[in-house]
């Protein structure tokens, strides 16, 4: 990155470069060839077989099928939207350029893990990714923290993976993939994952990506454009899973479990809170395990900012956050290096008060991930 950004100079404000910035969503690039040495047989053979397949963005047959934007006519553009980070050195340098102090790493291709129909292959991929992530990334630099991928196709194996890394100081979360997920994360089949995460003291972080599949809410074939699919895939998936996890009682059965959601912006939160509370008046008997109104549980969920909405009145962002009492649950995320990443400078244009600003950029994330300001687990 070669662009300079000027530090905030508003009176009484800590300049952005001096503020603690924890980034709740950053992506490493895992290629099939890189994961192969970490993968159990026979699946390592399959990874090597696609290691040389020319790659489009998040689109490798048999690995991450059906790329973002591969459905629409492809006109030429200077916006290539294919940034990737291949090494910890590259990541540390690029994050420093946007003033990020600590970053939680997510995959690129494995955003689509749930669409793979072969259970044993999907589980082997998740195990290979986790081993590779710790060996090649989080153990290499103290600013790089990891989220262990939980394979939804094999919840028992995912629980074992969480236990395996529970005491690794560089692992601070469990990544719950949402793209093409069926059933939604509220289903009881996933309880071993939540149980393991709660016991390990690790939060679960939901992350979706744009895919087109028959599975709700990714049955988005009715849309003509990537604008429509991309605008809805991430947010609808997070809304669907939050509603699922509240309405099946995950939030009650695992009261100590910290839950975070990424890449959905924040403006859906007031809607979900208000709508669920409205329904609850009529249908409480369907969710008798809830002892409080649904919004009580929704508001305990940590919400990552990216892609932060960009209304003309930036004050609206503060209002939105206040509508879900998000002072202590809203956490900054950049989504670096993806095409729709947010520079912290953008969020810093929002007229937060200084305490809100400190909390959103870093301190709330310390609570979510259970870490101190150097990234060490507490």
């Amino acid at each position, binding site marked *: 990155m070669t662009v300079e950004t000027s530090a905030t100079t508003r009176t009484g404000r800590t300049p952005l470069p001096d503020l603690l910035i924890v980034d709740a969503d950053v992506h490493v690039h895992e290629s099939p060839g890189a994961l192969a040495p970490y993968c159990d047989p026979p699946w390592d053979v399959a990874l090597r077989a696609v290691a040389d397949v020319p790659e489009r963005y998040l689109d490798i047959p048999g690995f991450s099928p059906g790329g973002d934007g591969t459905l629409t006519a492809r006109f030429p553009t*200077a*916006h290539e939207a294919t940034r990737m980070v291949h090494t910890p050195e590259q990541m540390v340098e690029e994050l420093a350029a946007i003033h990020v102090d600590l970053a939680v790493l997510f995959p690129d291709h494995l955003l689509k893990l749930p669409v793979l129909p072969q259970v044993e292959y999907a589980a082997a991929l998740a195990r290979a990714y986790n081993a590779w992530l710790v060996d090649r990334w989080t153990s290499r630099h103290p600013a790089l923290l990891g989220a262990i991928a939980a394979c939804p196709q094999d919840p028992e194996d995912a629980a074992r993976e969480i236990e395996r890394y529970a005491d690794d100081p560089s692992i601070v979360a469990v990544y719950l993939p949402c793209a093409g997920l069926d059933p939604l994360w509220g289903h009881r089949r996933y309880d071993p994952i939540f149980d393991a995460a709660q016991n390990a003291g690790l939060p679960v972080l939901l992350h979706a990506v744009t895919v087109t599949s028959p599975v709700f809410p990714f049955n988005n074939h009715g849309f003509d454009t990537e604008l429509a699919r991309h605008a809805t895939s991430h947010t609808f998936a997070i809304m669907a899973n939050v509603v699922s996890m509240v309405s099946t009682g995950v939030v009650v059965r695992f009261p100590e479990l910290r839950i975070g959601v990424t890449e959905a912006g924040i403006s859906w939160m007031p809607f979900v809170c208000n709508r669920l509370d409205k329904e609850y008046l009529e249908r409480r008997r369907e969710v008798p395990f809830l002892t409080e109104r649904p919004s009580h549980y929704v508001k305990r969920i940590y919400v990552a900012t990216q892609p932060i909405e960009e209304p003309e009145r930036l004050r609206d962002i503060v209002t939105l956050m206040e509508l879900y009492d998000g002072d202590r649950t809203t956490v900054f995320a950049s989504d670096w290096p993806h095409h729709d990443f947010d*520079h912290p400078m953008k969020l810093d244009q929002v007229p937060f008060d200084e305490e809100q600003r400190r909390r959103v950029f870093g301190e709330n994330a310390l609570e979510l991930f259970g870490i101190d300001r150097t990234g060490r687990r507490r």
Partner: protein
Amino acid sequence: MTDVVVGRLADFPEGTHRVVEAGGRRIGVFNIGGRLYGLPNRCAHQGGPLCEGRRLTGTLAADAAGGWRPRWELDGEVIACPWHGLEYHVPTGRCLAMPEIRLRRYEVAVRGDDVYVSVPDRRG
């Protein structure tokens, strides 16, 4: 204003662009149809390196006269920011998604074989 030499004319073949430094500023110099244009290398959206987009392209437009069918236009005159894809029409500096935004345009002149960009004098 000061005219700063930023290269030789042969450095800017038709249909290409480069980012140059002049008067402490990074400026994209574009050769479109034999005419040179200068734009700041900074996107008005999140400050991305606008002129480092690798190629000039056209874009899609539609209007009532064309039955709202898309047509390819402005071929070779549009740059998109590599950060988030915001498009600008280089000859006018107009941002296509936010027409109220128009980038400043630096005057680019050719004298002999040299290319000059006109930039404000540095203060103090």
